[in-house]
């Protein structure tokens, strides 16, 4: 069933693909966190004309398929912005970041809202501005609370990044597709990368769980 010798010869190729998968995932998460934070600030604003566009954006992203978003950005938005010579993986990272930003926005918003309002009042009573309260008192606590959720988002992104194979980014899934089609070894290649994805997500969750436990111990 599984052609082990094919897997063996393709290991360097697939390893490079896995490297790309992790690279894309990492940068998507970094940008996603930044986007999510900005969106959360907008959604928590007192001004409706800041809240409204952010809410529309979040709902739109969460209500449409990620595959469609990737195709839209690569085939629609990039040419429109004149980015015809850009690499496809830029579009992949942009799409994944814009997508995870919407999900992270909700995580951050919840995290910020869950901070006791006494914290804000104490900081204000010391003379801090709203911005200082956010930067020094609320956000550090909200982000620390959100770390496990950010870790989950990383794991989710490892899996979702396989969708950028649709725009020919040479990450793990795309490389497997090419080999499978050339050698007619579909089962071998797809079971092979399924195992590789699982290894990556499993290892990541384990590492994150350990980091989290250490952080929690450190702050006690």
């Amino acid at each position: 069933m599984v052609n082990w010798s094919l897997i063996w010869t393709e290991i360097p190729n697939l390893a490079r693909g896995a490297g790309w998968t992790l690279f894309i995932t990492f940068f998507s998460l970094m940008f996603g966190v930044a986007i999510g934070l900005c969106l959360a600030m907008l959604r928590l604003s007192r001004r409706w004309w800041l809240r409204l566009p952010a809410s529309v954006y979040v709902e739109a992203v969460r209500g449409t398929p990620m595959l469609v978003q990737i195709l839209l950005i690569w085939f629609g938005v990039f040419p429109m912005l004149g980015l015809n010579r850009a690499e496809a993986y830029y579009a992949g990272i942009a799409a994944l970041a814009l997508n995870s930003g919407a999900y992270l926005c909700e995580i951050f918003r919840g995290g910020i809202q869950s901070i006791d309002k006494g914290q804000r009042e104490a900081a204000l009573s010391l003379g801090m501005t709203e911005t200082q309260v956010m930067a020094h008192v609320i956000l550090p606590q909200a982000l620390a609370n959100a770390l496990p959720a950010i870790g989950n988002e990383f794991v989710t992104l490892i899996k979702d990044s396989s969708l950028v194979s649709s725009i020919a980014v040479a990450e793990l899934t795309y490389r497997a597709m090419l080999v499978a089609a050339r050698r007619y070894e579909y089962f071998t290649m797809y079971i092979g990368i399924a195992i590789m994805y699982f290894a990556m997500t499993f290892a990541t969750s384990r590492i994150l769980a350990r980091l989290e436990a250490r952080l929690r111990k450190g702050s006690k």
Partner: protein
Amino acid sequence: MIRIENLHKSFGELEVLKGVSARIAPGETVCLIGSSGSGKTTLLRCLNLLEMPDSGEIWIGGQRITDPKVKKTDVRRETGMVFQHFNLFPHMTVIRNIMIAPIKVRGVSDGEALDIARHFLDKVGLSEKADNYPRQLSGGQQQRVAIARALAMKPQVMLFDEATSALDPEMTGEVIKVMKDLSGEGMTMVVVTHEMGFAREASNRIIFMADGAVAEFDAPGVIFNRPSNPATAAFLRSVIRM
């Protein structure tokens, strides 16, 4: 020092302050007592603009803080507030809790802030806890840190809202002692409290609030021994029996 003129405040339909007026002299310690819901917390929070009064005026140290042109942050750095639930910043060490506002609000250097913080931490008797996190402290210790944090801004006025109500009985003493010391040093203080012992011994005058207004404002001896308002007498009978 503090002058309050005909202050009104409503939350929606509910009128909480119905024309409060009072004058508090520099160095005075004034206790605010009265039954639950009478508006004590709301009045106190108006004094540092955590609540905005609907009408009326407040002067603190000659500045009309109800002037819409006055910056709230400028008012708040001159008025320290101590809360029932301490509200220390859990992600900062004790010393950092005290240093943060002088650094960010007053703009003093880290070194200077450290000296200030050490000084006030020593004053509340917790020098050895500088590098602990708030959750490692008892309630009474946390509240003393909160007092040091407010004092580090060198405010003209200190406001206390039931600073001992959330504490176990054996811990109220240490906090009350710090408050009494501060009062003895001539800090101007407005203290919302259910501790009648503190009101009697440490305050210069007591405001008895009833139904959103000042029902009686007099020296503790008068309030406790021969109150002129029957509501004051009834309130005191009820709390002293408890």
